[in-house]
C-alpha cells in the first residue's frame, strides 16, 4: 500500500485512479448495506463473482459492492451501468440470467424491474424512479459510487479533494468562516450552527482539543447515520479531518454503537487505510498537521447520543449527562475543548470546502441550509432513506417520494424527529423540513426520522409507545425525567385502558411542560414532545378515549371488542384454528362467534380472516 507523503502525490494518484476506472466501461453495482444484506444480497454478490469468472468476464466488468442506496424496501438492489438499468428484489437464482441476458446482450429482464406502486408502470432506469427523482441526493448519491472498503474508490470519485485544498493551505479561521457562511447546522437534532461551535472550540484554551463524530444513533426507525458510516466512511473521516484542522484538534473519536457491526467494521477499515496511506497520523501529507482517529464502540444506550453522556462514556464512566452550563466546546472530553458533531454534519463538511459555501447555501431556507437525509418509514408505499433539500414540504416527501398511503387508508399524521419529536397532522403538511418551522409547530427535524401514520394508528397509543421507549432509555439521574416520564406514562396508560379522567389531560400537559423545562439533558427536555404534540393536534382522540371509553382507531386493547360479521363469514374456521385463547366457536360452514370474555384482543383473527368478516369496535 502506498504511503503518500505530499499533497501533490495524492493528487497524482487520484488522477491515475480516475483514468484506470474510465477504462472499464461496464459496472454492476450491488447494494451490500445492512438492509440489502438482510434480503441476502451477499449471496447475490458471491454468485455474481463466480458467474463472471466462469464466463471470463471478470476483467471486463467491474462488480461494485456498495453501502445503502436508500431504497431498502426493494432490496437487494442492482444497478447495471452504463445503461443505468435498475433491478430490484434480485435473488441469486437470477444472476445467470442477468449476466447472460442483460450484461452480454443488453436485454432487459422485465420481472426484475421496479414497478411504481402509484402508476403501476415498470420502470427501467434508476434515474426514472419517482422515489429517486423527487430527491436531492447530495450525500447519499455517493454511496452508490463507492465501495466503502476501498479508499481508491473514494479517491476516484473525487474524495479527499477538499482535504487537499484545505490542510496546510487554508487558514483554520478561513475554514470556519466558510462553514459559517454556508449556514450548516448540526444534523443530530439540535440544529446548532456548526460554524459557531467550531469558533468557540477554536478560541477555547486547552492543551489538547478533540473532535468527536457522534454515530450513536438510536431513534426508532432512523438509520441515516448508519448508512453514511457504512456506505461512505471516508467522507465522514474527511469531514473530521477538516474539522480537526479548523479547531486545532489532534485527536478524534468516532463513537459508534456496537449494534451497528457493519458501520464499526467499515469505520475501522477506513481509519486503518487512511493511517496506512498517511492520511492520518503525524504530519499528514507532508504538512505540519497531525491528527488521528480512534473508534469507540457504544453499548447502545440511547442517552449516550447526548453529548455530555457520550463524553462520559468515552472517558470510561457511566454514560450519564452532566449539566451543560459550561459548553462542551470549552469543557468537554477530559475537560478539554471538544467539538462533537453528528455523522451527517461531518459528511457535509467536505462538500462545502470543495465547492464553496455558496454551493451549499443555495439549497434550503433562510435559516436551514443544504440537504437533510430522512428515514421515511411507516404506512407509505415507498420506504427508505431519502435526501431532500431543506425547505421541502412534508407533503412532497410523504406523497411524491413516499408514494402516499400503503394500504388504501388515508394518512393521518407524520411523526418527525424520533422520540424527541412530535406528530404533525395532515393539515400541517405544508410545513417545510426546516429546523425552526418544525420546532415552532411542536415537532422537530431531529436526526431525521419520519414515521408516516394512517388512520389505523391511535395517537394516544403513539404517545404511549414513545413514553415507554423513553422510560426505558432515561438514565434516571434527574428527577423530572425519571419520575415525570413514569407519571406521564401512567396517565397515558390509564387513558388507553379506559381509566382516564377528564382532569388528567390538564395534569398531563402541566407535567409535560415541567419535564420540558426542568430536565437535565436534551433527552428529558424533549421527552414530552410526543405527548405535547398529540395533545395539541389530536386532543379529540384523548377526549374520545376518556369520555366515550372508545378507541377510534381500534388499537387500544382495553377499549375495543371483536365480533364476527355473520353476513361475510363463510365458516371456514381459520380464525377458530388460529385463536390462541380458544375464544371463537362455531361449526364448519356456519358463521362463527367470538366469546368476548375469553378474547384477549390479540387481533390474530382479523389478520387471518380472508373475508374481512371480523369487525373491531
Amino acid at each position: 500500500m502506498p504511503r503518500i507523503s505530499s499533497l501533490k502525490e495524492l493528487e497524482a494518484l487520484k488522477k491515475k485512479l480516475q483514468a484506470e476506472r474510465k477504462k472499464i466501461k461496464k459496472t454492476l453495482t450491488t447494494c451490500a448495506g445492512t438492509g440489502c444484506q438482510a434480503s441476502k444480497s451477499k449471496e447475490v454478490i458471491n454468485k455474481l463473482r463466480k458467474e463472471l469468472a466462469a464466463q471470463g468476464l471478470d476483467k471486463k466488468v467491474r462488480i461494485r459492492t456498495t453501502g445503502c442506496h436508500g431504497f431498502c424496501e426493494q432490496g437487494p438492489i442492482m444497478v447495471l451501468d452504463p445503461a443505468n438499468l435498475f433491478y430490484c428484489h434480485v435473488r441469486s437464482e437470477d444472476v445467470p440470467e442477468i449476466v447472460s441476458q442483460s450484461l452480454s446482450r443488453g436485454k432487459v429482464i422485465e420481472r426484475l424491474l421496479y414497478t411504481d406502486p402509484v402508476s403501476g408502470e415498470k420502470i427501467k432506469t434508476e434515474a426514472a424512479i419517482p422515489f429517486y427523482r423527487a430527491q436531492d441526493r447530495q450525500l447519499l448519491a455517493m454511496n452508490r459510487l463507492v465501495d466503502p472498503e476501498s479508499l481508491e474508490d473514494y479517491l476516484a470519485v473525487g474524495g479527499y479533494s477538499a482535504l487537499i485544498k484545505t490542510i496546510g493551505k487554508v487558514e483554520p479561521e478561513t475554514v470556519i468562516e466558510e462553514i459559517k457562511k454556508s449556514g450548516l447546522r448540526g444534523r443530530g437534532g439540535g440544529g446548532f450552527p456548526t460554524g459557531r461551535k467550531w469558533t468557540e472550540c477554536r478560541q477555547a484554551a486547552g492543551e489538547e482539543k478533540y473532535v468527536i463524530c457522534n454515530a450513536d444513533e438510536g431513534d426508532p426507525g432512523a438509520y441515516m447515520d448508519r448508512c453514511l458510516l457504512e456506505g461512505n466512511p471516508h467522507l465522514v473521516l474527511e469531514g473530521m479531518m477538516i474539522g480537526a484542522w479548523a479547531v486545532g484538534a489532534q485527536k478524534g473519536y468516532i463513537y459508534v454503537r456496537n449494534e451497528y457491526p457493519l458501520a464499526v467494521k467499515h469505520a475501522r477499515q477506513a481509519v486503518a487505510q487512511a493511517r496506512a496511506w498517511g492520511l492520518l497520523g503525524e504530519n499528514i501529507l507532508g504538512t505540519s498537521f497531525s491528527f488521528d482517529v480512534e473508534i469507540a464502540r457504544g453499548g447502545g444506550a440511547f442517552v449516550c447520543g447526548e453529548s455530555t453522556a457520550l463524553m462520559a462514556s468515552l472517558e470510561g464512566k457511566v454514560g450519564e449527562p452532566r449539566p451543560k452550563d459550561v459548553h462542551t466546546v470549552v469543557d468537554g472530553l477530559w475537560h478539554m475543548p471538544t467539538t462533537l458533531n453528528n455523522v451527517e454534519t461531518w459528511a457535509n463538511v467536505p462538500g462545502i470546502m470543495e465547492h464553496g459555501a455558496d454551493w451549499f447555501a443555495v439549497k434550503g431556507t433562510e435559516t436551514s441550509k443544504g440537504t437533510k437525509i430522512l428515514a421515511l418509514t411507516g404506512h407509505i408505499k415507498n420506504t427508505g432513506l431519502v435526501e431532500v433539500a431543506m425547505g421541502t414540504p412534508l407533503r412532497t416527501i410523504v406523497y411524491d417520494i413516499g408514494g402516499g398511503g400503503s394500504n388504501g387508508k388515508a394518512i393521518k399524521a407524520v411523526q418527525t424527529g424520533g422520540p424527541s419529536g412530535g406528530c404533525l397532522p395532515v393539515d400541517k403538511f405544508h410545513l417545510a423540513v426546516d429546523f425552526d418551522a418544525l420546532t415552532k409547530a411542536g415537532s422537530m427535524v431531529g436526526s431525521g426520522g419520519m414515521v408516516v401514520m394512517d388512520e389505523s394508528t391511535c395517537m394516544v397509543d403513539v404517545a404511549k409507545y414513545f413514553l415507554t421507549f423513553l422510560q426505558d432509555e432515561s438514565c434516571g439521574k434527574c428527577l423530572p425525567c425519571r419520575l415525570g416520564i413514569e407519571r406521564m406514562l401512567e396517565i397515558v396508560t390509564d387513558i388507553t385502558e379506559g381509566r382516564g379522567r377528564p382532569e388528567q389531560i390538564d395534569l398531563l400537559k402541566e407535567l409535560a411542560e415541567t419535564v420540558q423545562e426542568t430536565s437535565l439533558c436534551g433527552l428529558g427536555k424533549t421527552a414530552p414532545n410526543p405527548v405535547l404534540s398529540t395533545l395539541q393536534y389530536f386532543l379529540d382522540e384523548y377526549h374520545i378515549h376518556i369520555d366515550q371509553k372508545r378507541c377510534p382507531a381500534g388499537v387500544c386493547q382495553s377499549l375495543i371488542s371483536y365480533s364476527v360479521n355473520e353476513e361475510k363469514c363463510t365458516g371456514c374456521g381459520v380464525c377458530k384454528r388460529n385463536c390462541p385463547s380458544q375464544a371463537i366457536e362455531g361449526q364448519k360452514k356456519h358463521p362463527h362467534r367470538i366469546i368476548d370474555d375469553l378474547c384477549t384482543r390479540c387481533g390474530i383473527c382479523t389478520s387471518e380472516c380472508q373475508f374481512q368478516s371480523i369487525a373491531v369496535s
Partner: protein
Amino acid sequence: MREYVTLIIDGAHIKTARGTSVLDAAIEYGICIPHLCHVPTLSDIGACRLCVVEQIVNGRSKVTTSCTLSVEDGMIIRSNTDKIRNLRRNLAELLVAQAPNSRAVQDMAVRCGVKEVRYPFKNADCILCGRCVRVCAEMWQAKAIGFVGRGKDRHVDFPFGVRPDFCKRCGSCTMLCPMTISPCAGPMERGKERLCGNCESQLMITEKTNDACVLCELGKGFNCARHALGQG
C-alpha cells in the same frame, strides 16, 4: 487572590467569589432557594432539580439549576417568579408522590407550595438524590456505594451487591439521607400515604418575608444548607 464578581439575584446585588455556585451565593446572602440533593462541601450533580432558577441571558429567560450554575459578573437570576414557583411545586409534587414517608420530602413539599398530590402515592425508599454516593466517594474516597442500573431500575447499591471491605460503616451515607426521618405522625402505612402539610404554618412565615431565608423549621427537615452550615 480570590476574585470577586457581582451578580443580581432577585434584584439584590450580591458580591461573591468566583467559582461559587449561584445556589451557594444565594444561601450565603439569605435568599431561600429550596434544594435537596445539594450538600455543602460535596460536588453538585443537579439531580433533584428543585433549585431551578431563571437566568436572564440577552433578555431571554432560561431555566437552569442554581447548584450547577457558576456565578459570573453581571449575571441576572430570578428565583421566585411565578414560573419557577410552578415548576418547583410540580417537581416537589412528583417527589412527595414518590416518597411520602420522609419528613424531609414532606417538608420540601410544603415549602414548595404543594397543596394536593394528583398522582397515586408510591412508597419508595430512595429518591436517588445521590447524597450518600457523593459523600462516600468525595469525603471518604471510599466509593463503597454507587448507582446501579438505568432509569426506572436505578438504585444505590454496593458493588455487585456485596459490602466491600472499604466500607467502614462510618454511617455518613445514612446521616445525609433525606429518607431516614419519618414524618412527625410516624411512618405511614402502605396504601394510607398522604400529604402531611402539618407545617404549613411555617410556610406562612417564609411567604411573608418573600424570598428571604427565615431559618424556618422546614429547613431543618430537609437538611437545608444554611442549617447545615451552622448559620442557624
